[in-house]
């Protein structure tokens, strides 16, 4: 089975879906220009050579136009995969996403569907406050949008293919430090989870989380880059005799509540790790859900490890403080014992 980075796995998913279904096309800034990177992080690199510039569509620098074109074409029966260079720019298309894409199916009584995918790179990577946010939580709050966050190459391919085939607008959040992008787009401090990715067609169902490491003493829920921090922390904790169960939710909307619930019922302790700012992050929702439904099984308060409520700093030293570290996860877990 070939091994791929997440960027390669996403490219593979796009390629397979575009071959499978002529309605599928990509749009975004600099995703297919000759001599370009293939989007900001190489995901669409080389695809214009196979599919041409009509299906790998380079757009003007206007996020509102990208969103409008994606939604409009989806209404018209196409299956667009839109690329936003940095997730932070999603705010430019907020009306299109929150008022149009999320609500048209509901408002039309199901007459319209919006089968669009919006791919958004996120995460603090020494690019300053406007190119560094982790934005998943904003979109989990809008009914009608699905929110996906793959942390492995296998999931990246399977979830993107599932998203393309979904009749609802799906936002895929991809972490810049997990892409495994190469060449000029190599990221400093990247984790690059290279993983086995089947060549054949498969999907990872939207709404299914996965246990990345089984344990009995504490449940750690973490997504994207934080998953790797959590796994590192679990290793340290194991040396101290604490067996942490690490859950990758993979999808935030819909959330695999049952998986987390069963784990918390087993362990009695829950720590949620997210790179977003603490207040009203998606972790707050998981905490509230578990306080509600797993209350009688909890043996300690629920803890969240998140970035402080400040913009992501530009200075690398401050950014290191900002992004939750393995040590913070370890400390949070140890405070529960």
């Amino acid at each position, binding site marked *: 089975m070939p091994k791929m980075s997440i960027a390669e796995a996403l490219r593979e998913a796009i390629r397979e879906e575009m071959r499978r279904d002529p309605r599928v096309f990509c749009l975004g800034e600099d995703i297919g220009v000759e001599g370009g990177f293939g989007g900001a992080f190489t995901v669409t690199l080389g695809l214009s050579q196979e599919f041409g510039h009509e299906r790998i569509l380079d757009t003007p620098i206007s996020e509102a136009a990208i969103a409008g074109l994606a939604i409009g074409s989806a209404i018209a029966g196409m299956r667009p995969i839109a690329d936003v260079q940095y997730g932070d720019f999603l705010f430019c298309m907020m009306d299109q996403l929150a008022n149009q894409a999320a609500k048209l199916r509901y408002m039309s009584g199901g007459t319209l569907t919006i089968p669009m995918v919006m791919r958004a790179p996120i995460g603090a990577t020494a690019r300053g406050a406007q190119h560094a946010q982790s934005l998943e939580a904003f979109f989990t709050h809008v009914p009608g949008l699905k929110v996906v966050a793959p942390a492995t190459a296998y999931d990246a391919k399977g979830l993107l293919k599932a998203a393309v085939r979904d009749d609802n607008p799906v936002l895929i959040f991809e972490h810049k430090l997990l892409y495994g992008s190469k060449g000029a787009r190599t990221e400093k401090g990247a984790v690059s989870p290279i993983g086995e990715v089947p060549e054949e067609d498969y999907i990872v169902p939207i709404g299914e989380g996965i246990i990345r490491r089984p344990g009995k003493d504490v449940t750690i829920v973490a997504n994207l880059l934080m998953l790797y921090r959590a796994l590192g922390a679990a290793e340290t904790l194991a040396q101290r005799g604490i067996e942490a169960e690490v859950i990758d939710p993979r999808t935030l909307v819909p959330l695999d509540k049952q998986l987390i619930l069963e784990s918390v019922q087993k362990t009695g302790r829950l720590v949620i790790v997210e790179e977003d700012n603490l207040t009203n992050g998606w972790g707050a929702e998981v905490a509230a859900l578990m306080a509600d439904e797993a*209350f009688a099984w909890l*043996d300690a308060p629920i803890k969240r490890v998140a970035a402080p409520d400040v913009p992501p700093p530009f200075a690398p030293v401050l950014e290191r403080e900002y992004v939750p570290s393995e040590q913070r996860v370890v400390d949070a877990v140890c405070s529960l014992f």
Partner: protein
Amino acid sequence: MAIDILMPPLSQTMDSLVLVEWSKKIGEPVVRGETLFVVETDKAMLEVESPGAGTLRETLAAPGAEVKIGAKIGVIAEPGDEAVGATSAAQISRRDGQPLPPERQHRVFASPRARRLAEAEGIALSSLNASGPQGMIVERDVRAALERQRAQPKITPVARRVAEAAGLDVTALTPSEPGALITREDVEKAIQQQPLAEPVLPSRQQAGSRIALSPVRKTIARRLQASHQTTAPVTLNREVDATELTALRERLLADLQPGDPRPTYTDLLISIVARCLRRHPRFNAHFDGDTIELRDEVNMGLAMDTERGLFVPVIRDAQRKGLLDLARARTQLAQRVADGAITPDEMSDGTFTLTNLGALGVDSFTPIVNPPQVAILGVGRIRPVPAVYQNQVSIRQVMFLSLTFDHRAVDGAPAARLLNDIAQMIEKPHRMWL
């Protein structure tokens, strides 16, 4: 009945003692006589035995806290207490020994999981230890109580004795059938089934090892560092001809009555030094940096080496005691040190210290002053050497004396005069009576 743990009156000079550490954790079983906690007096670290058997239920003083003598510092729950549920919520304390904030004291704080389990098992939450975060009763506390309830099959007294003699863990034994008493036969069977201990091979990765300091070692470290940092030590060395002294001792030993203690060179030297000190009162004194307190009596500290470290018990009024009394007192103190029965009072208020490394083959060394004392005499081995005696080379029994004094309190010349006096008396012991 719960047993209150009180701070014992281990010092006659201090109203309060420092709690160094708890040797047991909350919830741990403890038997009478087992070390329960360690306190520090002005003299030493002391291990304090448990006043009774049961489970350490709560601690009211944290390590490092200074506690008045007689104050309650904890509670031992006796067997059966837990189920009775006599503990009030106010007695639940935090793991770090700090008292709970007031809002925690009037209700039981338990995790939802612990409540659910306790309810299902019919255990009163108020009877439980709280080991969780923020002084909360958590699942493991309920499970520990369940474990205590369920485990502990009864064992006959003889079976317990046999097991303990064989070094078997009594709690790991099982009766021949569930619910039955553990009998001597069960224990003997367990002894037979014990696997032979495998030899412990040193690990390749770990060369060397790390040793946490014992309370005794910590006290030694602290006091010697204090001595080193506060005193201005100077050591005078002098060779002494001890031939006469050895001859005197031979004659003394020959005349001993049955039952008399055998005087050692140390005893002879105590006697000599005590006598000399009366003529050099500045060396039989306490010095606090501002005042020299001259002492009438000579309380002779004796450095003694033990497996647990250095102890310095004190022979009081050494200047009044005859040689046999000194030998008797020294023997008794040595025995009490070896037994670990020595008390802080027996090690307090020394006015001068004698340290003899001669038996270990040392010729000369630099002793370190034991504050607030002013001086200490180190004694080396006695050995035969060719020496000039009465203008002839002959074989003489020679030893070195090393007198360390605190130069802040006294000067070199007076110290040299003291050393000279001691040397004269060793060389001509009949001067003792002049």
